[in-house]
């Protein structure tokens, strides 16, 4: 029997490729795509989902049962991967919670209805003392019992307020009946109910000792009494106030919380697959957004604008796609080539970037962006100062006076200085524009270092005194020995040259504030300061301070 059962998947596979495809689709539909938002592996167009479908297919071909295939994915991604988790353990709660909520709701409704029914006037006239009913009617007519001493404490005050409430109800009932809003049957039933309750109150009141004169001294006359209206607010309003206050507090807190959380955790969707959640609170920044969808449209101007906007927002895939689309329509568009060059240069593809700039300049020899981009790549990454100067000087003649022109002048000046000091030659000599080494801590100070703190690795130009450092690297909660490297990316002033001789100082800052030097900070200087940028084995020992 078991053998027969185990043959079922294999037999079902043997009936043809369509069945296999269907089986793959069924299993894929039960699996959640790990990189999509609430899409099954069957529905997702993602590369990972395609690979997962291929794995399902190959496992079924190997003769594995659908359960085994599902178990494989669960063993890799956990129960999370199942769109319908198995009702076991914590997942069982997901299955039974709706039923618990439903049962709770039904119980709540029953409770409310029962309470409502209990609060309805009840009792028949026959059950009440006829004398007391007469007294209720008399007091109702004479209005003697409507004065309520609000400061009467204890059971007497409570009963008096309840009596006033019942008399109010009776008066309103009478009014409603006279106005034709109630049938005679209902009117009588309700009146008997209220009267019965009032007689019970009167009985209780009579059983209590009379209120002392001071307690009754501060009686108030109800508002609108001259008009025959009753002090309905005496008992009912405080309760309503509570309800309104609770609702108001809830709405206020809910609104404020929602405002804070939504503001902090939502972001704009960049694509239909993107999630609106997951930013500040979840720690996934812009870089975790998936690639944007293919850009549609054939208007070159609009595509260029879209590309530029994406470029400025550093959404590289979107920018690349837009510029590629422009180039597919107009192969020699200088703007698209220039922007592609900037993106490629930023990603470190120097030769491809130069190719793109040259294409832009072939189409338009005076293209400012391409001149700027190729100039900067030649200067910073190709160490070709002459070529860079040629491009930037040409750009200088094309630009109107302004901040851009000034910046280019400064760059040209910097090139001159760099050549004068032989900096460019030095960068050519060194394989890498980095300083590397290992930081250790003096064993004597090791005890004072309890972990935590922020380590600052600071490089200052050897020739300068004071002013901002050339480069700083910040490492939180370092553990020693610590291997470090200081490069162009750690520069304080982007764009300036990361070359020459520098003094390297490291500081383990207890409070993490780079501007203050506390008593507990530990400092270390490189013993051969100053050092050439590009040097290796710049090993530093933290050995000063720490008291």
């Amino acid at each position: 029997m078991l053998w027969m059962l185990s043959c079922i998947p294999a037999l079902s596979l043997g009936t043809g490729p369509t069945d296999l495809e269907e089986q793959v689709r069924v299993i894929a539909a039960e699996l959640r795509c790990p990189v999509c938002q609430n899409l099954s592996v069957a529905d997702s167009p993602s590369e990972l989902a395609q690979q997962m479908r291929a794995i399902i297919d190959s496992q079924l071909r190997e003769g594995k049962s659908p359960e085994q295939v599902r178990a494989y994915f669960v063993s890799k991604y956990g129960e999370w991967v199942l769109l319908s988790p198995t009702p076991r353990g914590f997942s069982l709660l997901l299955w039974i919670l709706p039923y618990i909520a439903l049962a709770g709701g039904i119980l709540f409704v029953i409770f409310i209805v029962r309470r409502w029914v209990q609060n309805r006037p009840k009792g028949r006239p026959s059950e009440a003392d006829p004398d007391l009913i007469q007294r209720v009617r008399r007091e109702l007519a004479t209005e003697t019992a409507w004065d309520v001493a609000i400061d009467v404490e204890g059971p007497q005050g409570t009963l008096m307020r309840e009596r006033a409430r019942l008399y109010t109800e009776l008066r309103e009932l009478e009014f409603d009946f006279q106005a034709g809003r109630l049938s005679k049957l209902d009117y009588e039933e309700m009146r008997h109910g209220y009267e019965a309750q009032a007689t019970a109150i009167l009985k209780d009141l009579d059983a209590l000792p009379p209120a002392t004169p001071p307690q009754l001294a501060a009686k108030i006359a109800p508002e609108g009494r001259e008009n025959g209206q009753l002090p309905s607010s005496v008992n009912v309003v405080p309760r309503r106030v509570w309800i309104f206050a609770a609702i108001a507090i809830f709405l206020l807190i809910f609104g404020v919380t929602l405002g804070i959380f939504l503001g902090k955790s939502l972001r704009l969707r960049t694509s239909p697959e993107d999630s609106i959640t997951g930013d500040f609170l979840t720690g996934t920044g812009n870089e975790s957004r998936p690639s944007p969808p293919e850009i549609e449209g054939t208007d070159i101007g609009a595509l260029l604008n879209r590309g530029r906007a994406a470029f400025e927002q550093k959404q590289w895939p979107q920018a690349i796609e837009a510029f590629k689309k422009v180039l597919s329509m107009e192969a020699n568009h200088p703007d698209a080539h220039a922007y592609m060059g900037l993106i490629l240069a930023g990603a470190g593809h120097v030769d491809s970037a130069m190719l793109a700039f040259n294409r832009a300049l072939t189409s338009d020899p005076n293209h400012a962006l391409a001149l700027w981009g190729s100039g900067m790549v030649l200067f910073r990454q190709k160490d070709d100062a002459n070529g860079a100067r040629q491009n930037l000087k040409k750009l200088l003649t094309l630009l109107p006076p302004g901040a851009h022109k000034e910046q280019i002048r400064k760059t040209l000046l910097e090139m001159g200085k760099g050549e004068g000091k032989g900096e460019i030659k030095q960068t050519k000599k060194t394989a890498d524009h980095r300083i590397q080494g290992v930081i250790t801590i003096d064993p004597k100070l090791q005890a004072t270092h309890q972990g935590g703190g922020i380590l600052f690795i600071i490089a200052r130009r050897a020739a300068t005194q004071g002013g901002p450092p050339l480069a700083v690297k910040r490492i939180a909660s370092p553990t020693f020995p610590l291997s470090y490297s200081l490069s162009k990316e750690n520069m304080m002033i982007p764009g300036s040259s990361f070359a020459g001789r520098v003094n390297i100082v490291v500081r383990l800052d207890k409070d993490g504030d780079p501007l203050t030097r506390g008593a507990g900070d530990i400092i270390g200087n490189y013993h051969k300061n100053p050092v050439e940028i590009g040097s290796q084995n710049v090993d530093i020992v933290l050995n000063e301070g720490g008291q």
Partner: protein
Amino acid sequence: MAWRRLGITLLVILSLLGILAYGFSRDPRYIPTPLIGSPAPNFTLTLFNGKTLKLEDLRGKAVFLNIWASWCPPCREEARELEVAWQNLKEKDTVFLGVNIQDTKQDAQDFIKQFGITYPNGRDPSGRIAVDYGVWGIPETFFIDPQGRITYKHVGTLGWPIIHSKLDEARRRVVSAKEGKGSYQPIR
């Protein structure tokens, strides 16, 4: 009576706010791994230098298995740090191994050249290794002890302190209680 009512009201409000806060503070993309403490799935990787490498051949050494792609910004962010770590640790019974996924061969080779990566790297064109390791956000790094058991997983960028301490734990066969998280890029 009034205090009781106030208490119940506050309890209801705070419970709702608690649920709201929990919902907003969790990363909807995050998938906790069931693999920590389990044997590392075996694979054979064709390296970029043409040689093949089997994970099981690395038994006896702590393995730092990094899964990456050239288009992933956090992978670029950590690339130099990983190479520095490799240079410091390669003598200490440790193997660094890179698995490139969802990428073209050319882009992957350009990446390796750009960041001067010297430890062994290979491609996973079918995505089988990625799925075997439950990969969903890169870089993803698995620390494997000398017996071939996963001791720690880190989603996102990691620095020297974590690399050093978790490899030390892997060498001592210490299994971490939970995985780590840095800045990551969901795979495609």
